[in-house]
């Protein structure tokens, strides 16, 4: 008798199995999937690399070619969305994409190369043009004086300024 009751219950519930690999499936509203860098917006500031717990995003300079490389390796990403929280220009966003499986590990990389500006005094590449523009737009005009100097030259200039006043 118990078995018959079970059959009636199973019939009333019906099929619960999803048809997933043959039919698409919807993900929840705030699902955190694959992070994607918007290349047009990214300024190469390195805030995401600073926040990333497993260092899946690494930002480093190639001084010989004069580029800054933003390197995202999805294989190590833990989908915590901290990069999305700290990005000042909202360039990195977590999409709802979860179908990331691939037979080749090289497919899991995203690389963004941004051109570096050169220091006006010593000629060393030090920061991306986009980052400099972002900084210049966010400070008042009279504070943009030493924007094109690399950190070392700027330190020198500031110490001279502190010592001798406004003398140039």
């Amino acid at each position, binding site marked *: 008798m118990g078995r018959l009751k079970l059959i009636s219950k199973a019939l009333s519930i019906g099929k*619960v*199995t*999803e048809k*997933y*690999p043959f039919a698409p*499936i919807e*993900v929840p509203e705030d699902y955190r999937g694959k992070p994607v860098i918007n*290349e047009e917006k990214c300024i190469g500031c390195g805030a995401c690399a600073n926040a990333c*717990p*497993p*260092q*899946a995003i690494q930002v480093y300079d190639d001084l010989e070619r004069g*580029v800054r490389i933003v390197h995202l*390796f*999805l*294989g*190590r*990403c*833990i*989908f915590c969305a901290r990069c999305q929280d700290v990005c000042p220009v909202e360039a990195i966003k977590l999409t709802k*994409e*979860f*179908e*990331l*499986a*691939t*037979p*080749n*590990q*090289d*497919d*899991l*990389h*995203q*690389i*963004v*190369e*941004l*051109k570096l*500006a050169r220091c006006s005094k010593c000629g060393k590449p030090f920061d991306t*043009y*986009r980052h*400099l*523009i972002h900084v*210049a*737009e966010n400070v*008042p*005009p*009279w*504070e*943009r*004086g030493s*924007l*094109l100097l690399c950190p070392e030259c700027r330190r020198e200039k500031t110490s001279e*300024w*502190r010592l*001798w*006043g*406004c003398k140039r």
Partner: protein
Amino acid sequence: MIKKSLWVFHLNSGSCNGCDIEVLNIFAPRNDVERLGIKLVGSPRHADAIAFTGPITRECFPKVVDALTAVPDPKVVLAIGACACGGGIWYDTYSVIGGVKELYKILREEYNIEPPATVFIPGCPPKPEAIIYGVAVARGMLEKKQRKQVYIEPEESVAEEKARLESLLMEAEKTRHFIPKLEVRRV
């Protein structure tokens, strides 16, 4: 890689159990993968595929090699989770080898074993559907969607940015008299 039914041996190499729970989820009624002919087996000798989780701790490394060599050819490794794919948050820790890629390097150099075909399923942990997708890719049922993306900033946009920066600095040059003068205190 393998067209017929996959029998899977679940190998935990120091995982936190998150991925293991997701692996068990795909055998539950909601994502019942036995309809695709996939079955968990208790011994690597009976298996076609290894569901590989964890970053491979040093302690379990010899056991992992034993289990990998016990699986008959042709075999597939499903590297499930961030730890197995690239080391996860332990990728450079001293007590951990750091993902199947590093494991294969050691297998090639020290054991002279050619590593098996591998499907990488990133996620921490991956959704059960993501694991099913990885299995479908391994069996050739679906095409992979993921591609490597490389963006190199084009010359035109660099020139545009240079002009924009120069105009901003020109603005600064016009307003340079607003710079507050520092009073030099003589001692």
